[in-house]
């Protein structure tokens, strides 16, 4: 398949995928999730079929396909689910599906750091905050997406532009080079040792700045959470969703 044909096929597949995601968005009225799932699966199958032409010699890599499918399906379910706890748990699944993709590129330290830091700390914090802000009955803000058509259009237009250029310029069979065999990696053959050496030699300033950034963020988060909250009498009034907060006196 020539490059120009591949680009147009990519556009078509993303239009199909955009239609699928738009139909999967939460809405009031008749549920269109069945049709959305069908279009989304068709677009995903088409994309993975397109990926087969970019496989280098070495055959099919099942782990890439499985983790790519799991990551994409989990991320679509994350953005279209009506309950935020499920969104957080589907995002944990996305992180766990991105980890094999990193392992395939011989980035072991980053893969394990992703699981420990992202899935183990950041998302646990998200689940804590969701539990702290539980609302019974389930809030109306989750039952309808806000301007889903414009959002899907913006996202998939961006995606089409980026993907068409990726397809055009990165070529068809440029493989991911094996880093262990590469001569430019200094500081040891082990990925962790090499990253550690680089962090304290070439990227020392960035490493220290990252620590300072963490300290400043911790101070900021403590400062924000210590503010006294003024009591508003409107909290217990049940107002229609468009009018919530409209009658609150200014600060």
């Amino acid at each position: 398949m020539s490059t120009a044909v591949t680009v147009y096929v990519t556009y078509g597949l993303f239009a199909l995928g955009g239609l699928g995601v738009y139909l999967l968005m939460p809405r009031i009225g008749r549920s269109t999730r069945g049709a959305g799932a069908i279009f989304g699966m068709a677009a995903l199958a088409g994309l993975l079929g397109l990926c087969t032409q970019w496989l280098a010699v070495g055959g099919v890599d099942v782990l890439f396909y499985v983790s790519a499918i799991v990551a994409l399906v989990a991320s679509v379910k994350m953005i279209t689910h009506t309950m935020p706890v499920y969104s957080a748990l589907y995002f944990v699944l996305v992180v766990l599906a991105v980890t094999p993709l990193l392992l395939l590129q011989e980035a072991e330290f980053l893969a394990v750091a992703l699981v420990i830091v992202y899935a183990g700390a950041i998302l646990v914090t998200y689940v804590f905050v969701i539990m702290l802000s539980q609302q019974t009955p389930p809030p109306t803000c989750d039952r309808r997406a806000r301007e889903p058509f414009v959002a899907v259009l913006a996202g998939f237009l961006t995606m089409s532009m980026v993907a068409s250029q990726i397809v055009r310029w990165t070529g068809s069979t440029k493989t991911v080079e094996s880093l262990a065999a590469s001569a430019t990696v200094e500081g040891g053959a082990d990925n962790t040792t090499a990253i550690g050496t680089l962090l304290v030699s070439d990227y020392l300033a960035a490493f220290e700045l990252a620590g300072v950034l963490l300290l400043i963020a911790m101070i900021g988060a403590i400062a924000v959470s210590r503010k006294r909250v003024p009591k508003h009498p409107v909290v217990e009034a049940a107002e229609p969703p468009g009018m919530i907060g409209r009658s609150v006196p200014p600060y």
Partner: protein
Amino acid sequence: MPSVTAYMILGSLLFALGLVGFLSRRNLIVVFLSTELMFQGVLVNFVAMGSLRGQLNGQIFALHLLVIAAVEAGVALGLVVYLYRRKATLDTESWSGMWG
């Protein structure tokens, strides 16, 4: 082994799905979760581009991106808790008092 093109398209697709979720959901927590999904897409892209050149620069950048994501999650969730304590709702449209 799959080529760089496949990894970069996957990374951009994760980014685009995060963008769609960020623009279309009204729950504050899901908006921030979509931001984290955008971070995931960028992370996959960084590591793929680093592997394309056979260097570790992509992974170092991705590690710093992890730090920034943790920082953003901490501060953002502090703000979400504060906003929830003020109005007992997570709806972003309840804070739209500056419209019109």
